[in-house]
């Protein structure tokens, strides 16, 4: 297992800049998730590390050793793709032992190692089956076992669970995270699933339009988005604009105390679960519920509040329904905000 360092990596296809000047460091034994929508360059970056794609600029270091000129088969950076790419003509044992056989290891050594991995990945009893004879979850585990067999310097996972159904997906997420912690594997995983990223990662790199917009722990990334783009990506939809006048923050929804300096324009971001609504409260902005969606474990409301629509999520089954008038309360003190520059470009100041 190695520490990975990526230095000013860039790649364009047909003049289309897919990744742009990316810097990143992954510590040994760390799980970093590259999170972004499709087309954000996640897979290209992963393929670059594996050596499947040649980068236009920049360098990649494993333990401070530059591997730009190292061919694919010598990198020891194994990719597990969403299509798994098991070898259909080989048994599970043969699949798992493939990398070792290619390295010319003795049959005895291969057998031992494969046996240990079969046990670790809970594949006992299927050793001599072909990939098409086992379930999706088992295929997943075979792909991981095959990758782990060669003791890679880094394990690269490209949307590994996206083809599994939701229950199996959750189980595999937990299993892989457990395995990664237990064995201290350096792992870089690509996904577009926010929950998957937040629940598994040590650090999340939010990749938008080929650049890393934020690289931090899951709670920081979700609760303190570094830019409006990151906030948008995480589905934040409650933006409240205001400006500071006479020591007070003036917004459409009311006037609040503030410590910001005079004249500043600000955009506050509130997550749907950060808002408090009550139809009996004395304080707060007046709003009317225009939509209520029942989702079982939670309920979402859309509230027309002045000129804006506010989104609210709650677990509590309050008897609120469309048409009801409520008071909406915001906690400006702890909220994230961006300075609204005069040229309308947002800057992070929080």
């Amino acid at each position, binding site marked *: 297992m190695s520490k990975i360092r990526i230095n000013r990596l860039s790649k364009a296809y047909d003049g289309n800049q897919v990744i742009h000047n990316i810097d990143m460091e992954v510590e040994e034994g760390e799980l970093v998730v590259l999170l972004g929508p499709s087309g954000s360059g996640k897979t290209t970056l992963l393929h670059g590390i*594996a*050596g*499947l794609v040649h980068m236009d600029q920049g360098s990649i270091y494993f333990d401070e050793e530059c591997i730009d000129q190292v061919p*694919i*088969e*010598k*990198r*020891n*950076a*194994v*990719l597990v*793709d969403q*299509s798994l*790419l098991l*070898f*259909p*003509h*080989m*048994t599970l*044992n*043969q699949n798992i*032992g*493939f*990398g070792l*056989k*290619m*390295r010319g290891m003795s*049959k005895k050594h*291969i*057998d031992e190692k*494969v046996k240990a991995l079969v046990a670790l990945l809970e594949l006992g009893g299927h050793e001599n089956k072909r990939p098409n004879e086992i379930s999706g979850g088992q295929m997943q585990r075979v792909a991981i076992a*095959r*990758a782990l067999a*060669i003791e890679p310097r880094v394990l690269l996972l490209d949307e590994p669970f996206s083809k599994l159904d939701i229950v199996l997906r959750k189980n595999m997420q937990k299993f892989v995270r457990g395995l990664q912690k237990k064995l201290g594997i350096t792992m870089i995983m690509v996904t577009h699933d926010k929950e998957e990223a937040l629940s598994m990662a040590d650090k999340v790199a939010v990749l938008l339009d080929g650049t890393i917009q934020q690289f931090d722990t899951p709670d920081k990334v979700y609760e303190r988005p570094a830019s409006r783009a990151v906030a948008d990506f995480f589905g934040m939809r409650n933006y409240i604009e205001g400006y500071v006048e006479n020591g007070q923050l003036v917004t459409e929804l009311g006037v609040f105390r503030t410590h910001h300096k005079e004249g500043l324009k600000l955009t506050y971001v509130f997550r749907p679960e950060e808002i408090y609504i009550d139809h009996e409260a004395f304080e707060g902005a007046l709003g009317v519920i225009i939509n209520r969606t029942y989702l079982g474990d939670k309920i979402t409301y859309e509230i027309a509040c002045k000129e804006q629509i506010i989104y609210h999520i709650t677990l509590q089954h309050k008897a609120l329904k469309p048409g009801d008038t409520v008071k909406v309360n915001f906690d400006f003190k702890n909220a994230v905000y961006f300075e609204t520059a005069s040229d309308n470009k947002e800057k992070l100041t929080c």
Partner: protein
Amino acid sequence: MRKLMKYMMLLMILIPFIVMIIWSVTSSWPWPQLIPRNFSLRGYFYAIHPTTKAFSILLKSIFLSVVVTLITLIISIPAARAIAFYDFKGKSLVKVLILMPVIVPMLSVAMGIHLTFTKLGLANTHLGVILIHVVPGIPYGVKILLSIFELNGDKVEAQARVLGASSLQTFRYITLPLIMPGMVIAGSMIYIISFSQYFITFLIGGGRVVTYAMFLFPFVQSGDRTMASALSVIFILSIALVVYLSEKSVGFFYQKSSKYYV
């Protein structure tokens, strides 16, 4: 109604072959008899009788066509792979040109090349015949393997590389086993095409290289239906046998390799 149509169509396709099989054991079959009354195994006796050389010619033909098949496949693999996975200028033109031997009358091609072969000492030799047989087989080999390569994609090969296999190891342990089913189909087609060639064999072989198709031909020309049919039935059976054996041996090879490994 739908069933009736289905059986009628099946019959339409089968009748010619049934007629041929009946002819092969018939001495005379005058109209309007639905089934002939005089049977004879003359054709088959002729085929196995040692003085006629039919059997040794058959064996030589099979060997020659097997060699043609192997050479054609060896040329087709890299060609098909390059067309499937590499983008290059004129790719679509190459895709069309590769079909040329299907469209073009092979006879004219063989004529054109005959003189060159003569000068190179290839005319009237087995090697010359083998080389000319490769030409009509190429489009089938490339077409079938191309579709297999396009179906498989190159991601599985890339995965083998990532796991540490060199290009040669990847070809041996991944590419070759994966295209094997396509190789059997393509090989069968190429074999059938080579085995059935009459004119180009005659032209380039100059009558010195005698294949089974050439041996069969005089009986067709002379209108000896019983002989022609019987030899044709053997012709078909030998093809079926070779195709069957090649499929079996590939299956056997697989099982053996999978037992050997790990």
